[in-house]
């Protein structure tokens, strides 16, 4: 199974863990990912806010680059925003000959062209669930995630809106009550908690526009998962991971809450269930430490060098936690408890 691969800007650095874990699980399942040559940003939700035609041209350049290799007719996008933008441009060009002609005139200025409908754009989750399939995945599970309670979080752009151009390219899951990630996590042995907010929005760029609005959305999502006693949230979008993970601290401060809900990618969970080394899956990159919950399934993640405290313990005359607990037990003995 060979596909074009459109990683998107986030996966280069901020969501490198998603990229690394995707590549790690691709091999055992025979997925061959051919990165689109010299791809560019999809424009996220920003480019179209200021320019209409140029935003389609920006995305279409990627579709044109992807179509250079005639053998590859499917493009995988692991990021929900990239997935939506690529699908939307393809659909709108397919349905409007005027737009198609204009976008192609623009592409021609860069020596490119694209015939709408030639690339079938798919989300990584779709490919994992439908092309690899649960059976094959189940066969390869060696370290099931037994006992881990997971809130499956889809976010918005992977399930909405319907952007198919034919029956063949219909959205792979339900826009209100998606279930594919739930099923996948169950196959991996995890306990999937009921998560009514699974297809709600993380706020996207809202943290930069009005953080209070964004914190409200993040609070709902994290509290929702905590209310159902989830150990962690598993997601499939770099923006969702970034918002829920990196802004969980500022959100806690805003509401005076103390949530500590780790947020990992579904590809990392597949890797763990396959018995892969946590570090090779990019685990440890998250700001909300996932180690305590992963210890539940016997996964040990070494503390990264960068996280080691400086100056070291010996440098300061502070009582160590061990001594403290000894002291407490001594005191308890003394007062007869």
């Amino acid at each position, binding site marked *: 199974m060979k596909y074009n691969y459109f990683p998107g800007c*986030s996966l280069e650095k901020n969501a490198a863990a998603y990229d690394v874990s995707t590549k790690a699980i691709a091999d055992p399942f025979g997925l061959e990912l051919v990165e689109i040559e010299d791809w560019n940003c999809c*424009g996220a939700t920003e480019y179209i806010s200021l320019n209409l035609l140029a935003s389609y041209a920006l995305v279409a350049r990627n579709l044109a680059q992807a179509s250079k290799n005639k053998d590859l007719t499917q493009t995988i996008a692991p990021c929900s925003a990239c997935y939506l933008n690529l699908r939307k441009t393809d659909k709108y060009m397919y349905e409007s000959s005027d737009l198609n002609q204009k976008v192609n005139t623009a592409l021609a200025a860069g020596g490119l062209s694209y015939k709408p409908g030639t690339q079938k754009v798919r989300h990584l989750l779709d490919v994992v669930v439908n092309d690899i399939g649960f059976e094959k995945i189940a066969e390869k599970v060696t370290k099931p995630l037994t006992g881990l309670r997971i809130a499956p979080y889809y976010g918005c752009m992977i399930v*909405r809106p319907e952007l198919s151009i034919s029956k063949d390219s219909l959205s792979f899951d339900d826009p209100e009550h998606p279930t594919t990630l739930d099923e996948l996590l169950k196959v991996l042995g995890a306990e999937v908690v009921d998560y009514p907010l699974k297809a709600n929005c993380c706020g996207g760029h809202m943290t930069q526009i009005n953080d209070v609005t964004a914190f409200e959305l993040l609070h709902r999502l994290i509290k929702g998962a905590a209310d159902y006693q989830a150990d962690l949230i598993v997601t499939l979008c770099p923006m969702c991971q970034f918002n829920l993970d990196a802004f969980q601290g500022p959100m806690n401060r805003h509401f005076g809450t103390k949530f500590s809900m780790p947020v990992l990618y579904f590809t990392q969970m597949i890797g763990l269930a396959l018995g892969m080394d946590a570090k090779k899956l990019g685990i440890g990159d998250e700001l909300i430490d996932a180690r305590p919950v992963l210890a539940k399934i016997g996964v040990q993640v070494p503390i990264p060098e960068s996280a080691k405290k400086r100056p070291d313990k010996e440098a300061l005359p502070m009582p160590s936690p061990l001594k403290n607990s000894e002291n407490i037990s001594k005191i308890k003995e003394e007062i007869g408890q």
Partner: protein
Amino acid sequence: MTTIQYTQKNNGKKSFLEEVIELTPGKSNLEMCIQCGTCGGSCPSGADMDHTPRAIFQMIFAGMKDIVLKSNTPWYCVSCYYCTSRCPQEIHITDLMYTIKRIAVKENVYDDTTAPDFSKTFINWVENYGRSFELGLMSIHILKHTRLKVFKITEMGMGMVTKGRMSFTPNKIKGLTDLKAILAKAKELEVAG
């Protein structure tokens, strides 16, 4: 475009409704709005909007261009597509929000510059490098707009840097000259209409 009953022609000048429909790709179905309010009820950031999408649409029908363009509504849209997906009239609400943003920027009519500037900064990186650049984007945006709130996210920023999740330099694509030519041509065609 089909005839729109709501439209009031005034001296052959396009109504605001016609303008919005024309600048939205495909068939927006805006004229089909039945004011049910499913959009506002589904909106995750609706509570913080000046007007819900339903109200915005009615104001567009009424030709209240200034209020619509000055409202924070389109800028608070998080593009989650709940409204679009749930609208019984299949109105492309999210796309319409983008249209309102574009008109507001083009006519330079908006009150709060935070969101438009964020888009501009983002686009600037994309147009000059071909890729987005998070650290550059966030630093410029913070300096311009949220300087006083920076203490709220200092720890987070440090965390991202320590974990190696922030690049210090933007990545540039090889075909940047071609990309620039493509975007310039597209903008030229957009102006030509």
